[in-house]
């Protein structure tokens, strides 16, 4: 027998199509599951990021409240009448309230900057998720459309080959 030529059909193993169809089905099944795991992981990370954002927003609100309270305390202090030892009116000493207000203001600035950074991180996350999603869509199309379609084609090849093999058996049987 001459070696296989590209013009001729050469099939060394009649089970090749069955084997390929099985492998493709397994690949589709396993990788649909793998894609789902990636999605779950991303969902968990995004949830975690969202919780961190909410925590940082809460800190900004708390810092706002503290600053408002410190402002109130400072204004109260400044409006309180104060007198020296000789009973003359003097400017009240509000240094502790001023210090508390300064601290509260700094805490608010820090909380706000942390929240801004968090928002920037979230923008990065969204950008990266979109980039990933493009690649995922192509892969999902492969799993949902292209590979199942190739299984159909292989199935047709298998049927043709079975018919051919049956034909040969019948001919041999006649002899």
């Amino acid at each position, binding site marked *: 027998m001459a070696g*296989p030529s*590209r*013009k*001729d*059909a*050469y*099939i*060394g*193993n009649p089970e*090749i199509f069955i*084997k*390929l169809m099985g*492998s*493709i089905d*397994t*690949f589709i099944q*396993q*990788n649909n*599951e*793998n894609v789902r*795991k*990636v999605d779950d*992981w*991303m969902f968990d*990370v995004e949830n*975690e*990021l969202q919780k*961190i954002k909410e*925590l*940082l927003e809460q800190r900004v609100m708390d810092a706002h409240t503290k600053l408002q309270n410190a402002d109130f305390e400072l204004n109260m202090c400044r409006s309180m009448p104060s007198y020296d030892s000789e009973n003359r009116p003097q400017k009240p000493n509000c240094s502790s309230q001023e210090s508390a207000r300064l601290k509260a203001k700094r805490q608010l600035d*820090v*909380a706000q*900057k*942390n929240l801004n*950074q*968090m928002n*920037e*991180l979230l923008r*990065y*996350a969204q950008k*990266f*998720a979109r*980039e*990933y999603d*493009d*690649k*995922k869509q*192509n*892969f999902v*199309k*492969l799993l949902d459309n*292209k*590979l199942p379609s*190739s299984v159909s*084609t*292989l199935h047709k*090849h298998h049927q043709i080959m079975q018919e051919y093999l049956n034909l040969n058996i019948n001919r041999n049987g006649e002899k």
Partner: protein
Amino acid sequence: MARSNTNNQQTQEHKFESINPLVDPFHDSCYYFFQELNKVSEVWDDAASESFRHEVTVHSQNITKNYVEGVLDIYEKYSVILEQAQKLTKWNAGFGGWMSFLDLSMVVERGVSRLFFNRDDHRL
């Protein structure tokens, strides 16, 4: 036949180094699947086989490689982002030197380039 047994033995003995928990599950299914597809021409060699090689084997390999690179990428980038976000929740976050948005982008990109320079491109 003997050669086939040796190949099977090599296939079974193939061990993958762990990369990350998202990519690792793709190792076995992709490696063995494409190994099998690439060997198709040994037992099936005609015009239909050639078409199968182009339309299924090569195409699937490219799409899968691209996707797994995307998974590597998103794992690395999300991990860096989560790590940076968790730092912002620390009690002393923001009281030291500020990380600018440029620094932030560099941290993310550095994490990713580390992945790209160290990765093994021949897994699929």
